[in-house]
């Protein structure tokens, strides 16, 4: 994309002030790191980190048949949501593959708030609008420009955010949210995140975002808060084995293959992709997303081929040197015969075959 057409989040000036390195990402100029990925990663695992995730897309589904519509386009069962609860789900193609992965929040019986990947927002919105044509009593609205989103993540996220809000944060359980105030401004406060740590995602009006960002940095100072960029966001989500669209899942992969069968509710009624998923459940999957550690020397990266018995059998979807575990780890699709714990295969790294072994996912699980 032409740099002149890149968008900026309401927090752009804050990132420049903090001397962040800015890179183009999903059509936005985003901070990839401030002081360094490892420091920022460690701050989130041990204290608290602050992420600008305003590039994420927000879409409202409103109207009398809002639930029917959400049920039709996603694979998880949104009828199980009470007001104030959020759910991880998949926006499905008719083939049972991912248009995107997303969070579905139930605001009211007639309003569901969807949070989608920045890189997919335009595609998702067009897809949702096309699907909505067949539904009377549903309106799909792109609200992405109406919200800035700040993620406060880490073991000290709660005491940091609590200084700025009267909402009783400790009472908000995981995957629940409240409408409240942060630094005097209206906000949706959701106990969700993409780091494998406790934390909150806060949706605010763009005009309030910079003030709240600075207030959060001041509030978290005693805990060692750091602003964290896309680099740390990726290593954190990777260790927690949370899928990244475009890497670990895309429109060629199904939830069953990706190990996300728990978000597929085949008995909830008809939905896009259901027939394909029923068929795949009956036939069984042929490939599966696994986590692996490198037993030879090298780091697996997205797109590197996976070899076994002299044949190319799969590909790495994500890989890096895990900052918390201190070793190179990866995820990738392999034939189910190679997906069992302890199975071995080779990753091709710059024309060399380097040995790897399947290990348990997630790589990192926080102590609760």
């Amino acid at each position, binding site marked *: 994309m032409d740099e002149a057409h890149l968008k900026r989040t309401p927090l752009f000036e804050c990132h420049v002030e903090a001397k962040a390195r800015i890179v183009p990402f999903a059509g936005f100029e985003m901070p990839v790191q401030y002081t360094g*990925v*490892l420091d920022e990663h460690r701050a989130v695992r041990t204290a608290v980190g602050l992420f600008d995730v305003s590039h994420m897309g927000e879409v409202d589904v409103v109207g009398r048949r809002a639930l029917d519509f959400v049920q039709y386009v996603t694979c998880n069962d949104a009828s199980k949501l009470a007001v104030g609860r959020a759910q991880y789900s998949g926006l499905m193609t008719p083939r049972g593959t991912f248009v995107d992965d997303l969070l579905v929040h139930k605001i009211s019986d007639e309003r569901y708030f969807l949070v989608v990947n920045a890189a997919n927002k335009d595609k998702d919105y067009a897809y949702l609008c096309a699907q909505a044509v067949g539904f009377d009593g549903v309106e799909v609205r792109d609200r992405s420009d109406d919200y800035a989103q700040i993620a406060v993540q880490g073991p000290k996220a709660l005491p940091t955010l609590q200084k700025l809000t009267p909402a009783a944060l400790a009472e908000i359980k995981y995957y629940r949210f409240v409408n409240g105030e942060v630094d005097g401004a209206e906000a949706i406060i959701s106990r969700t995140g993409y780091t494998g740590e406790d934390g909150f995602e806060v949706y605010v009006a763009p005009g309030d975002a910079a003030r709240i960002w600075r207030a959060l940095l001041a509030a978290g100072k005693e805990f060692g808060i750091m602003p964290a960029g896309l*680099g740390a966001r*990726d290593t954190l989500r990777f260790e927690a084995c949370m899928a990244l669209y475009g890497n670990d899942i895309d429109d060629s992969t199904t939830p069953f293959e990706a190990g996300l069968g728990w978000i597929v509710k085949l008995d909830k009624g008809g939905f896009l992709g259901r027939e394909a998923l029923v068929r795949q459940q009956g036939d069984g999957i042929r490939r599966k997303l696994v986590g692996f550690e490198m037993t030879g020397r090298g*780091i697996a990266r997205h797109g590197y081929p996976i070899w076994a018995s002299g044949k190319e059998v799969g590909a790495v979807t994500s890989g890096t040197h895990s900052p918390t575990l201190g070793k190179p780890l990866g995820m990738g699709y392999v034939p189910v015969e190679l997906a069992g714990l302890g199975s071995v295969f080779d990753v091709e790294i710059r024309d060399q075959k380097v040995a790897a072994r399947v290990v348990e996912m997630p790589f990192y699980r926080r102590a609760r």
Partner: protein
Amino acid sequence: MAQPNDRRYTKTHEWVKTAGTEATVGITQYAQEQLGDVVFVELPAAGKKVDRGGALGNIESVKAVSEVFAPLGGTVSAVNGELEGHPELVNQDPYGAGWLVKLTVAPGAPEGLMDAAAYESFLAEEGAH
């Protein structure tokens, strides 16, 4: 950002410091800043012959992998074994303890490489700070 005056630089952000037929090679301060936290350094075995401009190794940061090119042709005489356990030396001291390899090269001053002032102008033209 001052570059040491005792060595030469490439447009691909390596440095080389020669003493007789021994040439020590590393990456520049600018290169390590761009890479970010280095977590793994892949270097050739001693005895390997490398061409000028040819692949010398790879440096992996948490974010990505980046190739290192040989500023001069020669034979690898030593690799920095410290980097196996402490790849962060490349970040912390790119012009010193973070050196990568030593090459045995033809005697004489290296030609066609930039001195410190020329490299700084090059960085300025590239838009680096």
